[in-house]
């Protein structure tokens, strides 16, 4: 089970006073906090196995907050981001939220707003974690299938529009009866009750990406 101790808040801000004061207040509240003066220094030390969220200043020299967000997306790092800004620039906030940011906080912000955002980020982190775990579990189950079963499972997920045995059989050059047989085995091994559930889970955990 995911616990608060496993959750780290990474503060990235070029202003030292901000880093100090934020670290102080959040630590007092029992959060695990790490702070960085630039995006680059964060990226250098970041370990993607440790879950947490970013408390990211938008306006920084060199790489700014938005650029870091893009970079993380590029690097396929899913970490919840809470933006902070002294400018309150509306266009940037829209862009950030679109790219998946949790919130865009205008400095100075009310503590309860910050805490609520952190809560959201925490829940998101949990969900990220769970997703990863269930995906890993699904993958493990998939590995237990025979080659023919894997083939049929993949065909079902890739062609959800027509999953009749007749069609699958024709496409894979086997008899519909054989398809029926293999499909029953697939559902059993993958621990799902229906073809629909199989498709949903496979897509969610990116089984065949």
């Amino acid at each position: 089970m995911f616990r608060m101790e496993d959750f780290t808040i990474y503060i990235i801000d070029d202003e030292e006073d901000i880093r100090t004061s934020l670290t102080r207040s959040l630590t007092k509240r029992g959060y695990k906090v790490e702070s960085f003066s630039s995006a680059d220094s964060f990226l250098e030390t970041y370990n993607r196995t440790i879950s947490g969220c970013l408390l990211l200043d938008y306006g920084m020299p060199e790489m700014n907050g938005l650029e870091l967000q893009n970079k993380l997306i590029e690097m396929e790092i899913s970490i919840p981001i809470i933006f902070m800004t002294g400018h309150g620039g509306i266009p940037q906030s829209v862009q950030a939220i679109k790219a998946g940011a949790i919130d865009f906080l205008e400095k100075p912000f009310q503590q309860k707003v910050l805490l609520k955002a952190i809560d959201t980020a925490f829940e998101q982190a949990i969900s990220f974690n769970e997703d990863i775990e269930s995906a890993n579990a699904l993958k493990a189950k998939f590995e237990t299938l025979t080659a023919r079963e894997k083939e049929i499972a993949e065909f079902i997920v890739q062609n959800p529009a027509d999953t009749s045995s007749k069609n699958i059989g024709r496409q894979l050059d086997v008899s519909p009866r054989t398809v029926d047989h293999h499909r029953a085995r697939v559902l059993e091994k993958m621990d799902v009750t229906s073809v629909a559930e199989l498709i949903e889970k496979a897509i969610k955990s990116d089984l065949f990406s």
Partner: protein
Amino acid sequence: MKLSLGAILAIWLSGLQFIAVLSVVSFYFVSSERVLLDHATTLIGEVGRGSTEHSKGFLEPAIRATKLAKRLIESDIVDNNSAEQLEKLLFQQMQVVPQLSGIYYGDDQGNFVYVMRSEKHADFRTKLVKRNNGFISTELIWRDENYNVTRRTTDPTDKFDPRVRPWYIDAKDKRSFIWTAPYIFFSSQSPGITAATPITSASNQFEGVIGVDIEIEEISRFLSGLDIGSSGVAMALSSDRDVIAHPNSNFIRETDQANTLKFVKIDQIEDLVAREAFGNLPNFDQVAAEQEIEAEFKYNDGKYASILIPGSNHDLPWSIAIYAPLSDFIGGIEKNRTRNIWIAMFIAMITGLIGLKIANKINQPIRDFAIRAGHVASGNVSKSNASSQTYPELEEVSETLASEIAQRKTFERIYGLTFSLTSRGMAQISPNDGHFIRVNQQLADTLGYTLKEMADLSIFDILHPEDVDSYLSFQKTLFEDYEYNQEKRYIRKNGEIIWLQVNAFLIRDNKGEPMYAVATIDDRTAQKKAETKINELSRDLSHFARVNMMGQMAEGLAHELNQPLTSITQNVDAALLTLKDLPDADPELIEILNDMDRQAHHGAEIIRALRGLVRKDEGEKSQFDINELLDQTLQLLKPEANELEISIALKAQDIPLVFGNRVQVAQVIMNLTRNAIEAVEASGVSERDITIKTKPQKKFIEIHVIDTGPGIDPDVDLFAQFESSKRDGMGLGLSLSRTLIEANGGKVWYEPKTKGRSRFCFTIPVAVIS
């Protein structure tokens, strides 16, 4: 129409000839006609008077016979009571006077003796009517010329009474010789007339009347025998307007309703010319009282002369009337006249031809001169084509003209060449109404008209509607002999507005009268447009600068202040949490910390409000030519750079259009270039130049502002707000530039000094052609 000298000479020569000949002919005709007409009138008059005399001569014996009988009776030589004596007397008169057809005597007792010529039984016949106490006897006696009775008879039915006859009554009433009105004898159907005279006793007692009947057929015969011209007519008219004699005796009789013969009235005669000539005389008695009446009249296109000789002036019982056609007298010369006119025309033609020949001869040297003048005028000045036949006056004029024209040609050629070869527009303009007397091709091209079209135009046709009154100042300036020099709007043929610099002055003739204005005209539209664009840009930039600098400052301040406020609130939060862990925390301290938190947020609110007040001008984005924008922006900076003796060069490449906010980009160019100027000026280096380059990249255009200044201290964060390497700088310029370029989707950066030059660069996205 102007006629040549030759034509004038020919027309005048032949025309005058014709008129001269014609006037001689006409004068001859008119004067001879007058003479002949006078002669005709005289002739008619004389014929008339002759006829009158003849009439008198014809009647005279009858009158004499009457008077003789009267005398014999009144002197009692013949007893008027004796029918035998009376008969004898009357018989004798009949024998003597052949004109008489009858003679008679009637007394107041009603006795009547009548001797007449007879065709039956004997030459003469006598009628005797005797009244005696109411008893009437009528005896008829025929006698031969020797007074022998050949037959005797009585007629009891004949109760003739002389006292009731008109001749008797009239003579008795007047007691003098009378003529009765002419009448037609019943028996012979010949016209006749009766003369009567009263017989009185010694005691002047009226006793009876002697009457004679005269046949006047003879008068008609006489009149018809008259030779009046070739077809003149003479007539005798009674005072009752009866025609009693006419050459055609059939014309004078008519039968009335009672079947009695009577004379035709003059206004009803079948001789229509006679009717026209005399029918209109209303009262013949009055007319007859006048002198002779001569007249000329027209009938049926024919001209006639007429005369009326009243008989009363000559003791005649009728008037003589004559008319004759004038053609009888002047027909000959009228025929002559037509022939003469033809002759005149022929002579005029001959002389006209001769005149033409002479005119041609006179005119030849003049025509040669005209041809030569033409040659000279077209620049062919040579003496070789001088005519052999000429006049010294013409020769002199020719020489002068040739040299004048040669001089003018030279001048014209130089002026014309200048006019058409100059690269500027040129025009000759009428100073009075402004129309173009002459323009060169350059001006026509500038205005978009052909030369031909320009010839019909005036300056009003091309003036901008708002500048129409500027022509007045044009006129005024010129007439005061100042040079006109104005830059104004004009309209091209296609309606485009163009700016023309017009430079004009007035040319006067040798009398000082204005001839035309010479104008040189330059098209200033392109410059004017560029200036306008630069001015617009300048205006936009200063507006932009005002709004955005405030916004930028507010923005910057907000950012800078929000940072410490954030730290404060976070620290307060940490302090509160710390305080809560203490068992004996001072509640007042908690309150103080809460207040601080609230006040820090309050400060942030104020800043937010301030920022809201100064909204950033977002501006509109569009496609534009960055080279053009660079050029315009640099124009605005040139004065500043020139003053500091810094040269600015633009090295533009052919690049695509960019997309962004033009004014914002201009502001960035302005900021960077001005920074460069200030850097070069502050450094005091000898090489004082700035170069701006454009460089196309894949999806961007790079703009480099390169200067020879000292470069930037690497410790300064150039693009941060409120940081400046300049002593009096606010640190907003570069920060604003960065904000603006980023807002336009570009980047801005600084490249440190290499080869003595440092450069600021920025990019602008290339416009995507959709």
